[in-house]
């Protein structure tokens, strides 16, 4: 019974429900399936909410509920932002601060991914490796990355290395754990299909385990980038001479609240953009996510 592509296409849409008898563990949400109208409606509402918040902020400032030093107006913050961006603050422009922070996060985070994923894969595949590494993981995980700062300063000084290492150390547990979780959640049948088609161990690893683990790895990356970013900013608050955390800290000591708030907003936007970037990569690498 050869099926005409067109009728079959109908069948394909009709039968999505039948195909809904998806293997257990399949995620039900399908990214990017939102209708265009709905998407723009959602974005529009975000913009409206932000504008409303700004208006409220302006109102509170106008009512003089707080001293201007504590809560400058949105316009003042915008002004501080423009000044820091063009003329800089304490000899460093906003662009330099952003560049330093982003590069530190970029290297530390990528290091955590590049090291964490293979470690996770090894731990999932080998009981021995798991037994050796897991105690360190379990002990190290509850330690807030900031607790390492004094030690890292003693060991590596105040340069770039301790900051990058701190990000790496803070982010690597989540990468390892997500990777292990990804391997562990692979349905047995995915392996069995490959085995009865004649796959050897190494082939199964490359052709089944690795791709199957990607969704969990990306989930780990989305959580990890948040950890990396907050670790970095915190590190810069304590020990740095350039960077967004340093900027915010310095401005605060001089009661330049406009710059502090502008800096915080930049930190927030950059963090959001980084996660967005990972989402875009994810969509390109695993378009099948949620469609198992």
């Amino acid at each position: 019974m050869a099926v005409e592509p067109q009728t079959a296409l109908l069948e394909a849409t009709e039968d999505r429900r039948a195909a809904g008898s998806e293997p257990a563990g399949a995620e039900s949400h399908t990214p990017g399936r939102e209708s265009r109208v709905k998407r723009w409606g959602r974005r529009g509402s975000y913009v409206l909410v932000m504008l409303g918040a700004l208006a409220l902020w302006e109102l509170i400032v106008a009512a003089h509920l707080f001293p201007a030093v504590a809560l400058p107006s949105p316009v003042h913050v915008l002004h501080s932002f423009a000044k820091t961006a063009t003329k800089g603050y304490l000899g460093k422009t906003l662009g330099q601060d952003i560049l330093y922070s982003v590069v530190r996060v970029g290297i530390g985070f990528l290091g955590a991914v590049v090291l964490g994923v293979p470690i996770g894969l090894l731990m999932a595949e080998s009981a021995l490796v798991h037994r050796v590494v897991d105690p360190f993981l379990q002990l190290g995980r509850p330690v807030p990355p900031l607790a390492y700062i004094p030690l890292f300063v003693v060991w590596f000084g105040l340069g770039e290395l301790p900051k990058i290492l701190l990000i790496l150390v803070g982010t690597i547990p989540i990468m390892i754990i997500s990777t292990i979780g990804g391997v562990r959640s692979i349905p047995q049948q995915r392996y069995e299909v490959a085995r009865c088609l004649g796959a050897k161990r190494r082939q199964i690893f490359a052709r089944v385990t690795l791709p199957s683990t990607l969704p969990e790895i990306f989930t780990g990356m989305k959580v990890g980038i948040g950890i990396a970013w907050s670790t970095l900013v915190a590190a810069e608050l304590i020990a740095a001479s350039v960077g967004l955390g340093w900027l915010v800290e310095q401005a605060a000591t001089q009661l330049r609240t406009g710059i502090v708030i502008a800096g915080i907003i930049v930190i927030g936007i950059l963090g959001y953009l980084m996660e967005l970037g990972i989402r875009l990569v994810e969509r390109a690498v695993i378009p099948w996510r949620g469609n198992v």
Partner: protein
Amino acid sequence: MAILEMRDVTLRFGEGRSGGDAGPATIERVSLELGDNEFLTVLGPSGCGKTTLLRIVAGFEKATSGRVLFDGSEVKAPGSERVMVFQQPWLYPWLSVRKNVAFGLELQGGRVDWKRVDEMIDVVGLSGFSSYPPYRLSGGMQQRAALARALVMSPKILLMDEPFGALDAQTRQDLQEFLLSLWERLQVAVMFITHDVEEAILLGDRMLVMGTRPGCIALELPIELPRPRTEQMMLEPAFLEIRRQALDTLREVALRAAGITGTGAGDLPGVPADGIGGGGAPETGQAQQNSTGQNSTGQNSTGQKSTGQGVNEDVRLPGAAGQATEPVAGSPRGA
């Protein structure tokens, strides 16, 4: 000539081997043969070990005792001459339909015969969908792609584990007809597991009905209906007679299973008090021999045949009920 031969195959799972009650079912002293290009259907209630049986043939499970010979040699590991088709298609979502079908060939190294891949995609009626990711296809189409992925390996036997169980009635019927037409064309043996009586009769040359706890073959029936088979045959007397026998056996099996869990088991004569596997197992053979020998209700219009040892022709015989129950009650997982 037999392509597959199982002799007294027993599989018990050690404690802790299977977590919880969803674990695989045990089977006890199953013997069967499968001829070249034969279509064998295995019918049984859930938990009777029919999937376990199939997994042993596939090489995923190793029998505790007994022999499994495939094409003359012992089955030790999975291999592409015995490809399994699962209830779910389990296509790889990161590969296109074409790459999924070619999956097994690519594993062999060397150049993939893409012409053969495309031909097989054509055979299963998916030529327009080669480049699609599998999740864009309907459940039925996905299962056809899974079939193509298996058949492209030129297996000697297809092991099908309720492959149409998750599909809606119409798609299921389409695929049943489709599978039969494929099988007639491609010359491959099929071992087809199902819990659907009609499906088992409609598809098979021969049908095995399995009993539970432990899994064993309760009834073997040749299905002497002409081919090609059609839905209309399901109303013919011959079909209905086979169906009646199969259902009777299933009912008997269910009653026995219920009898064990109830208080009745203790009242039965000859049930060993300790009731652990080793003691019960040898008696299985006796019980079967007895029932085969004494059985007089087994004869019928469709011509039951016995292939000898290990095949219990009829478990309905009232006189043999006590004995027939005995090894079951003595099974390791009796209750």
